[in-house]
């Protein structure tokens, strides 16, 4: 960028015939014309004169250099725009989507729950958990450590499109409060960066998961940084394939370090309290 930029005054000069009084010599030190703009101006004037003689080759070389510099500047602007998109625009997108998700959850939760259908025949298997369509809100996550306003809506699914909307619940893992492992993955950077500060959680910190009728309070039991292939952290009993779960756990995963895919940061928690909404806020949320 810098090199291309310093070529711009020269081009401008050659266009208007090398007028030494033309503005824009690019010198920031206006107070010292001799030291700052002197040598540049002399060189530029010389080139302008030669161009005036109409040498075809030089004109073409100039056009080529100009085209090239414009391309380079364009590339620089594109990279800058992309950076702005990643660091700022994606947050705007996510904030809008999260607002909408909050609204949708609010509406869905205020609707009376359909009365439990009395089974015609005695059930052998328990009722399957409600199936949430991919991309729809599942629950609201609250972590007092991350501030009072921290309340991202967890969506169902972890495809790229789902994760753009919010932290995603891995389908097939337990639902909030259920026995098993409620696994949620979220962006560490970009798209609202919901899990940006996951590394600040300490053992004992509360993670409150709000669903339609209750709050599930989990306590952080530990965290670690693992390689991305460690699927076993998402098992119903983390790291124990095939083990039958007896506890309700939560596992949050995100990328680590920030902006990298080399590792994953994993935070584990265990359900310690279930509060009906009719009984008010859980102690973890009122104390903070």
């Amino acid at each position: 960028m810098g090199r291309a930029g310093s070529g711009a005054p020269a081009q401008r000069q050659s266009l208007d015939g090398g007028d030494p009084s033309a503005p824009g010599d690019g010198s920031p030190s206006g107070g010292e014309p001799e030291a700052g703009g002197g040598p540049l101006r002399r060189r530029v004037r010389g080139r302008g004169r030669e161009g005036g003689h109409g040498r075809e080759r030089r004109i073409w070389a100039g056009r080529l250099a100009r085209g090239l510099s414009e391309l380079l500047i364009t590339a620089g602007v594109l990279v800058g725009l992309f950076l702005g998109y990643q660091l700022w625009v994606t947050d705007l997108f996510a904030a809008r989507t999260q607002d909408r998700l909050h609204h949708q959850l609010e509406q869905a939760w205020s609707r009376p729950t359909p009365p439990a259908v009395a089974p015609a025949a005695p059930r052998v298997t328990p009722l399957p958990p409600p199936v949430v369509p991919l991309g729809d809100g599942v629950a609201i996550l609250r972590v007092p450590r991350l501030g009072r306003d921290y309340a991202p809506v967890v969506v169902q699914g972890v495809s790229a499109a789902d994760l753009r909307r919010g932290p995603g619940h891995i389908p097939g893992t337990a639902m909030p409060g259920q026995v098993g492992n409620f696994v949620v993955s979220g962006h560490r950077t970009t798209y609202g960066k919901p899990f940006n500060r996951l590394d600040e959680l300490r053992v004992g910190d509360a993670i409150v998961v709000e669903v339609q009728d209750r709050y599930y309070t989990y306590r952080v039991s530990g965290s670690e940084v693992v390689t991305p292939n460690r699927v076993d952290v998402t098992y119903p009993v983390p790291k124990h394939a095939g083990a039958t779960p007896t506890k309700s756990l939560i596992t949050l995963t995100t990328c680590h370090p920030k902006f990298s895919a080399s590792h994953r940061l994993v935070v584990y928690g265990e359900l310690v309290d279930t509060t009906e909404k009719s009984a008010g806020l859980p102690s973890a949320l009122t104390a903070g």
Partner: protein
Amino acid sequence: MYAWLYRHLPGSRRARPLVAALLLLGVVVLLMFVVFPAVEAVLPNGRVTMGS
């Protein structure tokens, strides 16, 4: 390149800055909503789940 483009923009001399601004806006919108979301798929910071 840009000088050439600008000269070949439609519209009168006075309308051209507006046309250029609209064109620029169109390009930025295309980048933000189509190109960048496609490009970011190859970036590492979207990989937050296990097993990849």
